[in-house]
């Protein structure tokens, strides 16, 4: 085993002894998907980048000029961009973190064998199935001052917060946004983690029990390490989604009270203000930021897989 992994590591990937004809076959078989990816991914990204270097007149039809990196310097020098960047990362960090904890808990519950498990698994997914815009409208109504469920309930229970204008004040507005996101996507996180849980062999737990490991030790030493790949995949999905969040702030607050995200400012410049150059520059910046985060995650995940391979 030791020798086999060592050999695997020594050989650079891609030049590992496959014949030329096999490599050609691989290229042929990959070609269709690469072409599709180029058409749906590379072209629009390239086009958006090109647009971000240009400027269209808002007054004179057809008037156009090459603006170089003006749009980028305008975006990067505006405080709105940095505020939106901070908000986006704060939102993503807190909501994905909460979703991970809650999703993990939900997955562990759903993994246990009990009566009605199938129904529970279905019901738990309902929030995920609801459209984000619908979710946002629902939460907006729940937090409507004086009349919504939340202020009325807080008032009836005599709890503080009944008088707070939740969507009209910092930082509560961001709090509502995080709450709505967690409510909606924690089940998705749970589902991905549940899939990871189900491939852990029961024998490991049996063996650990025989060795006298406590429930906590079994969770720490068996469940968590073996769940790591599933958790990382779930985290990637959710973080990338959260960094691009648009629908929630768009419906809940239109970006007021510290809820403006990167996608929201890009959309506002593009569609409301029709500043196609600046809007494209903002989308390209968002793209690069999300790519960078994805890259970091994938490095982490890749390393993890290799580590796993070495352990077994």
């Amino acid at each position: 085993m030791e020798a086999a992994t060592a050999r695997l590591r020594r050989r650079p990937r891609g030049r590992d002894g496959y014949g030329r004809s096999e490599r050609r076959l691989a290229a042929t078989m990959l070609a269709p998907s690469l072409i599709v990816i180029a058409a749906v991914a590379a072209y629009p990204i390239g086009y958006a980048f090109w647009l971000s270097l240009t400027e269209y007149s808002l007054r004179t039809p057809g008037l156009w000029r090459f603006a170089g990196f003006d749009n980028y310097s305008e975006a990067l020098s505006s405080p709105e961009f940095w505020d939106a960047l901070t908000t986006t990362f704060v939102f993503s960090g807190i909501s994905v973190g909460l979703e991970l904890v809650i999703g993990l808990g939900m997955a562990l519950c759903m993994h246990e064998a009990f009566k009605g498990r199938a129904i529970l698994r279905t019901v738990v997914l309902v929030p995920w199935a609801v459209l984000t815009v619908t979710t946002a409208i629902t939460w907006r109504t729940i937090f409507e001052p004086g009349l919504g469920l939340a202020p009325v309930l807080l008032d009836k229970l005599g709890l503080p917060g009944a008088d707070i204008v939740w969507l009209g004040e910092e930082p509560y507005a961001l709090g509502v946004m995080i709450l709505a996101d967690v409510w909606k996507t924690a089940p998705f996180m749970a589902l991905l983690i549940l899939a990871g849980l189900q491939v852990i062999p029961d024998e490991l737990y049996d063996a650990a029990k025989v060795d006298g490991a406590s429930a906590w030790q079994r969770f720490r030493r068996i469940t968590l390490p073996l769940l790591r790949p599933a958790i990382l995949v779930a985290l990637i999905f959710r973080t990338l989604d959260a960094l691009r969040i648009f629908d929630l702030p768009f419906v809940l607050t239109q970006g007021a009270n510290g809820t403006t995200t990167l996608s929201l400012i890009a959309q506002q410049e593009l569609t409301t203000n029709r500043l196609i150059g600046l809007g494209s520059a903002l989308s390209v910046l968002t793209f690069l930021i999300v790519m960078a985060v994805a890259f970091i995650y994938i490095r982490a995940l890749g390393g993890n897989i290799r580590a796993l391979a070495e352990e077994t």
Partner: protein
Amino acid sequence: MLRAAAVLAALAIGIAGCGGGDDDDDGGGGADAKKVTQAKASGDVTWCIGKDTTGAFGTVVDNFNKANPDANVTLLELPEAADQQREQQIQRLQAESDECDVLGMDVIWTAEYAAQGWLQDITDAANKRKDEFVPSTLDTALYEGKYWALPFNTNAGFLYYRSDQVPEAPADWEAVYQQGQQDNGVVYQGFRYEGLTVNFLELLYSAGGSVVNEDATEATADSQEVRDVLTFMADGIKDGAAPKAVTTYKEEESRRAFESGNATFMRNWPYAYALGKESKIADEFEITTFPGYAGNEGAGVLGGYDLAISAYSKNPEGALAFMNFATSPDQQVIQASEASLPPVLTEVYSDPTVEKALPFAADLLQAVEQAQPRPVSPVYPQISEAIFTNVYAALQGDTSPDEAASTMNEDIQKAIETF
């Protein structure tokens, strides 16, 4: 990695698609726009306007098709929200699509569409019928001395008040706020959106102020009037005359607050009247035209929709014939009675059917007559954003009224100077 790229690409497509970078270079614009002078009721015409929630648009189309066997008008319904209607129309116009012949435009889009060369000049047709329209409504179709549209329906705000708490409508906004502070407060549209621009401009116009000069080439917002109105609105919230919650209110939230008995006064559009008469405060409220402010008479801001002919229409004569039909007295009566849409023709307001459907028709005519258009500029969306963002900051107490006024002025000037 590739999956991530694909997900991101989908976003990029979405965004690039929305913007739809157009590569065309053929002009249009104010000077050499196509002109339509003849109306001829024949051929196919497609009418692109917001969702037909009451069925009244469909009625006009049916009536026209019945009366004109040679012509065939089709209704193409756009989304219900105005922003999305604009988005969808702009996508078509940038692609030079001939799908839409007649465009139903919110009155604030006229200047932008005309400046982009997306509309046909209908000055002659409008001049011929000038006397029929309420003058202020026709002003919304005017850009650079030419008419680009015919008004289809109009709108102006009202002051709603609880007649059980306030026996008589106060004479000015100062009294409204004072009374509101003693009773249950004043609600209006204070969310950070177009509605806040309207609410702010109504007070500013009454005060005799402005945000841009006559031809919208210079910002004039750094003025005493703007500072006064901002102070008045911000103090209203600080002193409790208006609840803090108004900063989250659009039209519907204000209506719900008023109908649930949580407010003494409400600024809203006429649509809230009929709904209010079905609520639990049905017999306890009245409406009135806007009171005065700062010693001046009340003023409003015009809403409503205009009809225009797309520059890419293949049947402009047919389109004009339909527009004339839709704005004729008989059809305007139907719009008012079936859909409660305020008519644009003066004579229609005294029609018995309309008076029955809109019991406040006389007040409404007065409100429309005293209302003014919002700044007529191709960059109106940015001007409006400059207004509502800074008014909102002042309402929230994030900036002082003085600071908000000068930032608003800078932002408007910057918008006007956009390439």
